[in-house]
């Protein structure tokens, strides 16, 4: 099992957001997490990635069989956890090239590898850019600065492609994308899909799941996963709305 979350409770400033989450993800699987606004989807993603503002009050998270909660954020990243941010952050003055070079090389260092030679790195940038069909001159632009909403989301998938993660958590990567961009992003994710890695997509729209077909769909509601099923659950949610979940609790 790649990721095993057991009875996870997390709070911020004394307010409990996650109230006992259970989730199992195996290699090769795609999971979708849906749920109303403010129920804790992004919180769950942040806690897995290791964001320090949240306090873990109960439960455990195993990743590759080891206690994930012991690892600092950057070690989790180097161990293959990637978070596609719902709101990608701008870093003024830091070029995408410099940012990605630092990220790639620090991850290599973590694994005892030498830095990637400059030429090889730039070739990789070009190759991955094509994968997500980024045509704009990205390299010299500052990280996410002045990017449109859709460009920021594409940029997340581009970084995912560069870092080649084992577990990708994509938090509403589909929000704000036009139809073409949605297809491109989904294609990118599908190309990166393999038997050795897994993807968790957080989304509000069943539409994305037409492109990225999930093995499992979970409904996160008030800090708990209250319903799980196959991809048909997403369709059911779409037609019946969350009232249906509430009523069935």
């Amino acid at each position: 099992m790649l990721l095993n979350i057991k009875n996870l409770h997390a709070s911020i400033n004394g307010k409990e957001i996650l109230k006992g989450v259970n989730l199992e993800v195996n290699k090769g699987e795609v999971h979708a997490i849906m749920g109303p606004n403010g129920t804790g989807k992004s919180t769950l993603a942040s806690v897995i990635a290791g964001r320090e503002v949240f306090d873990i009050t109960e439960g455990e998270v195993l990743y590759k069989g080891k206690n994930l909660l012991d690892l600092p954020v950057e070690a989790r990243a180097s161990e293959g956890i990637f978070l596609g941010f719902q709101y990608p952050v701008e870093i003024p003055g830091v070029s995408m090239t410099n940012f990605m070079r630092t990220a790639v090389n620090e991850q290599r260092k973590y694994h005892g590898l030498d830095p990637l030679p400059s030429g090889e790195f730039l070739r990789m940038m070009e190759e991955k850019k094509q994968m997500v069909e980024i045509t704009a001159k990205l390299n010299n632009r500052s990280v996410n600065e002045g990017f449109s909403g859709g460009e920021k989301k594409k940029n997340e998938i581009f970084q995912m492609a560069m870092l080649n993660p084992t577990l990708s958590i994509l938090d509403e990567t589909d929000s704000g994308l036009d139809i073409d961009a949605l297809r491109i992003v989904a294609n990118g994710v599908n190309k990166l899909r393999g038997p050795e890695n897994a993807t968790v997509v957080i989304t509000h729209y069943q539409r994305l799941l037409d492109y990225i077909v999930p093995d499992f769909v979970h409904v996160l509601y008030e800090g708990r996963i209250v319903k799980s099923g196959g991809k048909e659950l997403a369709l059911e949610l779409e037609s019946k709305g969350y009232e249906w979940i509430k009523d069935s609790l």
Partner: protein
Amino acid sequence: MEKEKNHILKEVTNSEYKWGFVTDIEMDTATVGLTEDTVRFISAKKNEPEFLLEYRLKAYKKWLEMEQPQWAHLKIPIINYQDIIYYAAPKKKKELSSLDEVDPALLETFKKLGISLDEQKKLSGVAVDAVIDSVSVKTTFTETLSKQGIIFCSFSDAVQNHPDLVKQYMGSVVPYGDNYFAALNSAVFSDGSFCYIPKGVRCPVELSTYFRINAANTGQFERTLIIADEGAYVSYMEGCTAPQRDENQLHAAIVEIVAMKDAEVKYSTVQNWYPGDKNGLGGIFNFVTKRGICKGSNSKISWTQVETGSAITWKYPSCILLGDHSVGEFYSVAITNNHQQADTGSKMIHLGKNTKSTIISKGISAGFSNNSYRGLVKIAKNATNSRNYSQCDSLLMGDKCGAHTWPYIKAENSSSIIEHEATTSKISEDQLFYCQQRGISTESAIGLIVNGYAKEVLNKLPMEFAVEAQKLLSISLEGSVG
């Protein structure tokens, strides 16, 4: 997690100055303290013409009447000016004609500093006038430059070989009575650099000096004079690292720049004097007066500085925009960490018509440090249609440091435009998390973010300096997350 963060913070803000070492060289020193005799001793040692001795003595008398300024946002320990040795020179056995004759210990120092006086520098196109303690040991490139009529030599050599130029321009931008530290420097200055670019000549190389304080208890009083004649251009770089010392060392330099009609001078500094230890013990007191005058029309002076060192920095590189259409620029990154204090900024004095000035200041404070921007933009009545744009940004790391901005504006006509923008920010938790989530360590993340923040200024540095400066920024701030 919070505990661990504090731990990292402590561990790295504790990082010791990485260029601390001491060279053992025989010194030829003045006795401790400052009297008229000291001034005469220095002048005699340097075999100076009468006018210079008179200048020094006038400055000394003026200095006696003055008091150390208190207006800066600095806590300055009491400096006992009678405890300082005002002149120290490496003992010369004889006139040096080649590198082989230079004291091997000195050469070793240069090596540690990464300065090579040999062919390598020639190949990289940098002429170096190296100042160790107070006397220039070796000047390279002088010959190549002199073919174009460029004079680039130690201040002492200029006094001997070009006394008329020295007499004409020294003190013309920073008069000896300008301020307490300028008066002190004018009385006891030891050596420094001199540069004259004749009419219409573009200096083909970046001129650079490396300064270094090396003798315990020895004050350093450098003096630099740069003159760009009509239509001339020069880019000048000054950089320094200093060895670790427990005693506080006083550094009061003067830099004067004169730009004639259509001339341009770029002056870049990377300042990395010993900042003191993590508890605020030791470190250099850096009281510098830097000023340029755009004397002719269409002339331009740019100051670019990266300030990471010194326990105390008191420094306001300024421009007097006398010529019509002249341009003054000031680009600064000032970092303070641990117990460092910096009060720095610029003065732009607009006197000519259609003059333009730009001030971009990026302050970064960490640890227990204090970092202040102090600036004056003055547009005189006759300086019609002039413009100034100032941008002063402060970045705070942690909650024990301080950042302050004191912009003074005096506009005496209504056709001019002054714009001022100021921001204060912290390295956001969001930015750090974003970097870390990509596998980037906290240290590197801070390095990235800070270099990004300072990019506008770093971009103004000559290539050789930019790389060094970027490293310095990261090193100076390692781990200071709040």
